[in-house]
């Protein structure tokens, strides 16, 4: 027994020594990203650590959150004040929602750090994005996360299968002259040519609804099924819409009724795949039909350059015809940010790292695209071509920060990032940009309302049910669940925000 005790004590001492030895090394800072598909990051992190050792004075470790598990992990790490997670992705639509978490003191206020170490960062990120991140947080008004410079503007488009459109005897210009309410003729023709089992209208029902009515997502609204609508001015997105700056019950407007009635007509005529009206099958069906080019008109929230990718993938000519100019709303302008955990022991090192990541093309390329020679090579034009090893290292590009400093890839073509900056840099903000609905006071109503909406909205938007009978029933159910209370709370906050 004594022998064991001696051995044990010796072991403890040895461990103790190791602990002291490692304390002299550089501190390790950890960042948690969203949406990654990374199984092997050794080569990348080795290079990164070599590079940042002097510049940041720390070693980096990364927690590669995936789409499915990030929400849980990030919220856990912040709520339990996990000091081993220094930096964490946040945004207006994830579980660790930026505004709420900043207000409750989970994020470090960055203004002082920006003033001291952030000169390069401020130069790299547009003023508007800094403003979008400036909110009323736990330590007063300020910036609580670094806003990534990515596809900050939203633009909903018709996704047109031009190859098929031409086959049917129409040109893209003919299509551009049409609108949602006059597609019928086109669909009838497609059905006639392609046969009865062909569904020309490949939609994402909720997105379609926003496209047709020119309404937008209100940040802070129920995430699963939106309940509120804010109507845009389709001619000039920075001007007030038809109703002014008022939040409306999405399902009670005449525009909505007109939309679902037309949609029901299309559905009855067999233009829409019934699988799209069911939440479980909607996404798979849409992806499958897109990939096999088995559609005529679809809906797509646009990302610059996506038509090339889409055309190549689907083996047809794809065009995206926008419904409005690109606009910047709160959801998109707080779409991908990185905050520093207030439990972190190394906020300064963490900030230095974030500032470097967002302003240094070498580091951003390294962390985003991998190591040259392993994950990508450069072709004769200096464009990036990914190798097979990229499959083991695919972070979510837009979730990392300033993607405008990335080099162009061969798939995107030369000059892509320059166009990118022009396109998104020139987008206009909507009048209520920056407004986030704080739903804590009406969270019970919101839960009840989203349950009701989940039951009706998708089927209505897809046209699967007859609005004449279902819509009144739906509206009555919403009223019973407290729609008016919810709406009043939202509008009171919006008015206060706009200073009315």
């Amino acid at each position, binding site marked *: 027994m004594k022998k064991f005790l001696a051995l044990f004590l010796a072991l403890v001492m040895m461990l103790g020594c190791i602990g002291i030895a490692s304390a002299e090394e550089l501190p390790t800072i950890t960042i948690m990203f969203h949406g990654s598909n990374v199984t092997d990051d050794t080569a990348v992190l080795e290079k990164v650590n070599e590079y940042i050792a002097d510049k940041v004075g720390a070693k980096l470790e990364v927690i590669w959150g995936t789409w499915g*598990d990030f929400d849980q992990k990030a919220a856990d790490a912040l709520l*339990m004040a*996990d000091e081993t997670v220094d930096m964490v992705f946040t945004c207006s639509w994830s579980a660790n929602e930026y505004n709420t978490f900043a207000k409750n003191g989970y994020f470090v206020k960055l203004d002082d750090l920006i003033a001291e170490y952030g000169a390069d960062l401020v130069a790299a990120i547009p003023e508007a994005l800094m403003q979008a991140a400036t909110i009323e947080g736990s330590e007063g008004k300020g910036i609580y996360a670094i806003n990534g410079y990515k596809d900050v503007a939203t633009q909903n488009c018709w996704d047109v299968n031009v190859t098929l459109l031409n086959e049917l005897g129409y040109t893209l210009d003919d299509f551009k002259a049409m609108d949602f309410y006059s597609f019928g003729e086109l669909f009838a023709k497609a059905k006639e040519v392609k046969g009865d089992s062909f569904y020309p209208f490949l939609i994402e029902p909720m997105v379609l609804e926003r496209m047709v009515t020119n309404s937008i997502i209100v940040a802070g609204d129920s*995430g699963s099924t939106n309940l509120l609508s804010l109507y845009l001015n389709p001619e000039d997105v920075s001007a007030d819409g038809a109703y002014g700056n008022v939040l409306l019950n999405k399902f009670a407007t005449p525009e909505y009724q007109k939309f679902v009635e037309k949609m029901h007509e299309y559905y009855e005529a067999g233009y829409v795949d019934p699988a799209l009206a069911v939440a479980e099958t909607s996404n798979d069906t849409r992806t499958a039909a897109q990939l096999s080019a088995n559609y005529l008109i679809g809906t797509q*929230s646009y990302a610059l350059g996506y038509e090339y990718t889409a055309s190549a*993938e689907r083996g047809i000519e794809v065009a995206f015809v926008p419904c409005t100019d690109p606009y910047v709303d709160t959801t998109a302008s707080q*779409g991908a940010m990185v905050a520093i955990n207030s439990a972190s022991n190394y906020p300064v090192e963490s900030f230095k790292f974030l500032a470097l990541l967002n302003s240094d093309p070498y580091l951003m390329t390294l962390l985003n695209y991998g190591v040259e020679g392993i994950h990508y090579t450069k072709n004769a034009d200096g464009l990036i071509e990914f190798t097979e090893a990229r499959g083991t290292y695919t972070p979510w590009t837009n979730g990392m920060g300033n993607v405008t400093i990335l080099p162009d890839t061969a798939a995107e073509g030369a000059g892509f990032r320059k166009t990118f900056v022009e396109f998104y840099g020139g987008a206009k903000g909507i009048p209520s940009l920056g407004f986030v609905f704080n739903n804590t006071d009406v969270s019970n109503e919101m839960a009840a309302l989203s349950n009701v909406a989940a039951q009706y909205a998708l089927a209505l938007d897809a046209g699967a049910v007859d609005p004449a009978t279902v819509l009144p029933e739906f509206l009555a159910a919403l009223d019973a669940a407290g729609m008016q209370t919810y709406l009043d709370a939202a509008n009171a906050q919006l008015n206060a925000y706009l200073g009315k």
Partner: protein
Amino acid sequence: MVMKKPKANLNGFSTGTEIVFHVILAVFALACIIPFLFVVIISFTSEESIRAIGYSFVPQSWSLQAYDYVFAMGGALWRSYFNSFLITVIGTVASVAICVLYSYPLFRKDFKYRNFFNYFSFITMIFGGGLIPTVVICKTVLGLNDNYAALIIPMLFSPFNIIVMRTFFQTSVPMELIEAATIDGSGEYSTLTRIVLPIVKPGIATIALLNALAFWNEWFLSLLYLNKNMDIMPLQYLLMRMQRNADFLAKNASILGADAAKAVRELPSQTLKMALVVFIVLPISCAYPFFQRYVVAGLTIGSVKG
């Protein structure tokens, strides 16, 4: 009523009752088998067929595509397979040992602190620490972070199993037997291992089966405790991640736009998910017959006859 032929089976029921029971049990058995059979069929269905007619017992065309993909996944898949086995084996052996060693004294009426230890374990069934405190303690105090121990230790001690095991001791091991062993000069350890354990094998088999299933099906611990070291991810979590990724992208497709469309394309297909389910279910269903032998044996054997 006079019977011409003696009943073949004295304990049997009348033919009518037998038929009714058989039908009920057959329906029950089918309800268990058909879903799994469906999964197997889907895993062999071609993607085109699913696109065209959806899930069906009679697909338009068959394909080995999903299995090809699974085998092509190579390293990651076999690693997590190995992890699942390792966790299940170590976890089951350790948790059964703990369960038996804890519940045996609780069954012995001559153990002084019986009541205290009884409540000590039982109270955790009623009052839990809650998720966040539990995770904080495990991560920061106990160091259960990114290691195999994190996937095993939180599940080692189950008060429910201890109550089951204690009851099993009480019903199948008579005190007389232990007294007899003591009189014959057997020490406590030898009484437990040589006299008691052979009698309670069926009970141990039941507990082992429950534990093996729990460890094999566990994915939540991985979600909580695995952050950086994904090499030790068990198979269940691999599958769960795919499922959660798909769900998340479906829910947020409209916000993520083209990013989501791109990501969805990289996700495994429906058939692949089903193929993985087959991979997950097969090994554990092979364990059933093995355990069943003991469980059935438990119904017929006993130490004191009469």
